[in-house]
């Protein structure tokens, strides 16, 4: 007599539904309740609901338009101003580009670090960890999201920054020939790379939570199809979970990118900013959000318009990033899991 039991399930079953088998009933459930028309309450309720969703959608658009209008209106004086009046004395463009570049650098570092870790943790929780343990890990990650950003900033500035200096020394020793790791590193550790690392930790829960949800929703039928062909668990994940979740992964990363680009407090505390510096481990660089936060309280007149214009630029960048994400997602529509 042999006894075989797997303590770790090869995939999780969303909402505790019985997978695969005993499907006769769940089939009816799935197919029988799709018809919207015969829901209780009839067409009148449908119309009310349709109206409510329309209004909600319209409100979002109005708010978005209002923000865009406010920013443009308040920023407009700067575009007519003489370049000598703008901070730095060389016009708005040369004022804003280092900030935009700094924002992008910090966000890209954060994404590069957080995306693989976030996807890995999410996958571990949804498909590898024993169910009870998985819950605990998920809970801890969710807690990260609840920590106020000022705490992350304080921790980054007072704990991480000093501790990471030896690592920067080592990095510049090995990869110093690359402009981005050119030495000598700062003695304080308050660099754009440190800020990016702190940002990565902050956006990790966004990526993990979203990916975890989506991974767990991969149809059991598809996962069993892969396993039934002789796929290992990892192959099953690559064949079914990732393709199914692709759009969701992109969305989560874009959401995280938005958060990273807009994050202010943590960067303000961690980064001792300055002009653009290609080396990530020297001081210098600044982000748009942090620049606004640092200078807004004392700003008046044209300086105020200038900062709002910087805000407008950030707003546009986030919009563009989101549009790009939509484009990427829609390109895969035909082959997406949606029409299975």
């Amino acid at each position: 007599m042999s006894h075989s039991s797997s303590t770790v399930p090869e995939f999780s079953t969303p909402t505790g539904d019985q997978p695969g088998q005993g499907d006769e009933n769940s089939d009816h459930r799935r197919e029988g309740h799709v018809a919207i028309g015969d829901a209780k309450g009839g067409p009148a309720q449908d119309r009310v609901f349709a109206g409510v969703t329309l209004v909600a959608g319209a409100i979002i658009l109005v708010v978005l338009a209002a923000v865009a209008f406010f920013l443009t209106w308040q920023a407009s004086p700067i575009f007519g101003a003489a370049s000598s009046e703008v901070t730095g004395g060389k016009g708005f463009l040369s004022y804003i580009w280092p900030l935009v570049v700094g924002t992008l650098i910090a966000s890209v570092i954060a994404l590069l670090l957080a995306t693989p870790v976030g996807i890995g943790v999410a996958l571990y929780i949804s498909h590898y960890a024993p169910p009870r343990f998985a819950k605990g890990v998920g809970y801890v990650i969710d807690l990260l999201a609840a920590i106020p950003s000022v705490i992350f900033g304080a921790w980054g500035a007072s704990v991480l920054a000093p501790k990471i200096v030896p690592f920067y020394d080592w990095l510049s020793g090995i990869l110093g020939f690359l402009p981005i790791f050119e030495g000598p590193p700062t003695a304080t550790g308050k660099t754009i790379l440190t800020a990016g690392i702190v940002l990565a930790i902050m956006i990790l829960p966004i990526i993990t939570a979203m990916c975890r949800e989506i991974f767990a929703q991969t149809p059991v039928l598809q996962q069993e199809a892969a396993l039934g062909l002789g796929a290992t668990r990892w192959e099953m994940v690559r064949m079914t979970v990732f393709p199914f979740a692709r759009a969701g992964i992109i969305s989560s990363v874009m959401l995280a990118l938005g958060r990273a680009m807009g994050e202010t407090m943590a960067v303000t505390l961690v980064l001792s900013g300055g002009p653009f510096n290609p080396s990530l481990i020297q001081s210098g660089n600044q982000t748009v959000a942090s620049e606004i936060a640092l200078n807004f309280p004392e700003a008046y007149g044209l300086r105020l318009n200038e900062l709002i214009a910087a805000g407008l630029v950030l707003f546009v960048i986030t919009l563009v990033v989101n549009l790009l994400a939509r484009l990427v997602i829609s390109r895969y529509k035909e082959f997406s899991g949606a029409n299975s």
Partner: protein
Amino acid sequence: MSKRIDVEHLKVYYGDFLAVDDITMQIEPRAVTAFIGPSGCGKSTFLRTLNRMHEVIPGAYVEGKVNLDGENLYAKGVDPVRVRSQVGMVFQRPNPFPTMSIRDNVLAGVKLNSRRIARSDADELVESSLRSANLWNEVKDRLDKPGSGLSGGQQQRLCIARSIAVRPDVILMDEPCSALDPISTLAVEDLINELKAEYTVVIVTHNMQQAARVSDKTAFFNIAGTGKPGRLIEYAPTQEIFNKPQEKATEDYVSGRFG
């Protein structure tokens, strides 16, 4: 490549729940064996133990032996992944990979375990598998379109093509026609008839006419009541099961008096 299955005293559990009790039976190679019985009697559960798919459900395990040409699938050190590539499975609802083209669906199992396959070999395999699944003529002009764009019956035959592309010894089918219209059902039944020339085919069906049409031997399963384990009641050549069953329960079931 068609192998005999020898099941010895197999008990199948979901956690504490004994779903199928003490099955002993031999399944012949190059033949179609049908499992029939009322809903919930453990046909699917038992079928899924034959390629170790049962244990992918959390808490599920088995006791006993399943021998494939004498080799116990549940012996220590046997890799369930290898078992599943030897014993293919077709599911109740067609489940082609929605993100893959028809061609890639057929090749999905072949490309596993980082196996590489030359383009010309792949083309040949795609064609021969789709021909064996009676699907080639319908899809040969759109091999690069997604498999999910096919009709239900075509999808199910694509899933069968995908299974046979791996050259398994056994093909298990769990109510493969239950989601299909009558015409598609006929197409799949014809296919099952052809498959037995090369494979050991085991099919679960709740449709007794189907069992009578396609199978050589039939196993009747039953449960004493909800919460009780399913048991193998009678196992005999299909003609006997339907014409002169030995057991009263079998006779009641096949004559439509219950279930």
